[in-house]
């Protein structure tokens, strides 16, 4: 789990540098994980194949309620972020850092919730659109409840 001190540190650095901060939400996050273990599941009520009622499913992807689901989801998104050029921070498993030349972005992951901040609005948009091509995503904009910035943001 992400340390709250990491969230506050990243937000306070973003504020100091006037970086845009966006809150993103991945829809149905736990359905995106790929299973590495063998898991079977009985046919759900109402969707039983009448010609083969005795058969069961073998799952390729994870479902909500599986003990593998949180880990499978985290592995999936972590692997994807690495392909985008992010590096997983050593001091916090849920922090991903993008640092190439003058461009920097920080991504905080809390299960399906993401806080993303980047050194420029164009970089932020590029990362969001790359994420959107991989996962269904809801961009909640700059809404961060209970944390107040002492000065109004110039750009969002």
């Amino acid at each position, binding site marked *: 789990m992400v340390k709250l*001190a990491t969230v*506050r*540190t990243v937000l306070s*650095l973003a504020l*100091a540098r*006037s970086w845009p901060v966006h809150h993103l939400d991945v829809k149905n996050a736990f359905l995106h994980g790929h299973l590495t273990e063998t898991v079977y599941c009985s046919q759900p009520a109402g969707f039983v194949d009448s010609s083969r009622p005795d058969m069961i499913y073998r799952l390729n992807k994870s479902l909500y309620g599986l003990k593998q689901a949180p880990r499978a989801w985290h592995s999936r998104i972590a692997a994807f972020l690495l392909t985008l050029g992010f590096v997983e921070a*050593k001091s916090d498993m849920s922090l991903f850092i993008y640092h190439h030349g003058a461009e920097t972005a920080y991504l905080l992951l809390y299960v399906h919730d993401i806080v993303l901040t980047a050194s420029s609005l164009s970089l932020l948009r590029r990362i969001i659109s790359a994420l959107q091509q991989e996962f269904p995503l809801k961009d909640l904009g700059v809404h961060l409840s209970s*944390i*107040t910035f002492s*000065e109004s943001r110039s750009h969002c």
Partner: protein
Amino acid sequence: MTGCKPSSTPVDTQGKLSEAEGNPVANPTAYQSLAGALQYLTFTRPDITYPVQQVCLHMHDPREPALKRLLRYLQGTVDYGLLLHRSPSTELVVYTDADWAGCPDTQRSTSGYTVFLGGNLVSWSSTRQQVVSRSSAEAEYRVVANGVAEASWLRQLLAELHMMDKSLLAGGCGLQ
């Protein structure tokens, strides 16, 4: 409790409650559930970190006074949050304090620390110490060690965020 009279402080400053003090609550499960929910509120409310920690010490045998006092305080301060200021500094400042043998039941001490990054509060903690300290110096150095450990973790984090220009670390503790 929604219509209760607000209290200006979240906790009794006179002393800590011992286990059998006050009336047992009518519904212990509701107390435990509320105490659990209040732990989430401490994410943005450092002012209630200590009272919530105290409330959570009585989960096994909940008593009325501490939780009621805290809820009355929250009634008057529902709009409180955490304020972050725009600050160019990445200086880390740690403050620590401990009471000595504060817990009336176990004689263990209570630790508290806060870590500021460039004037912004980013990390804080209030915990009952694991072992009995035989002097106030013992109680104090335990929390200094924890505060410094948190600050060195933050230093590592700042280095990873490419924010560490000059690794400044300052501190103050409750020892006279």
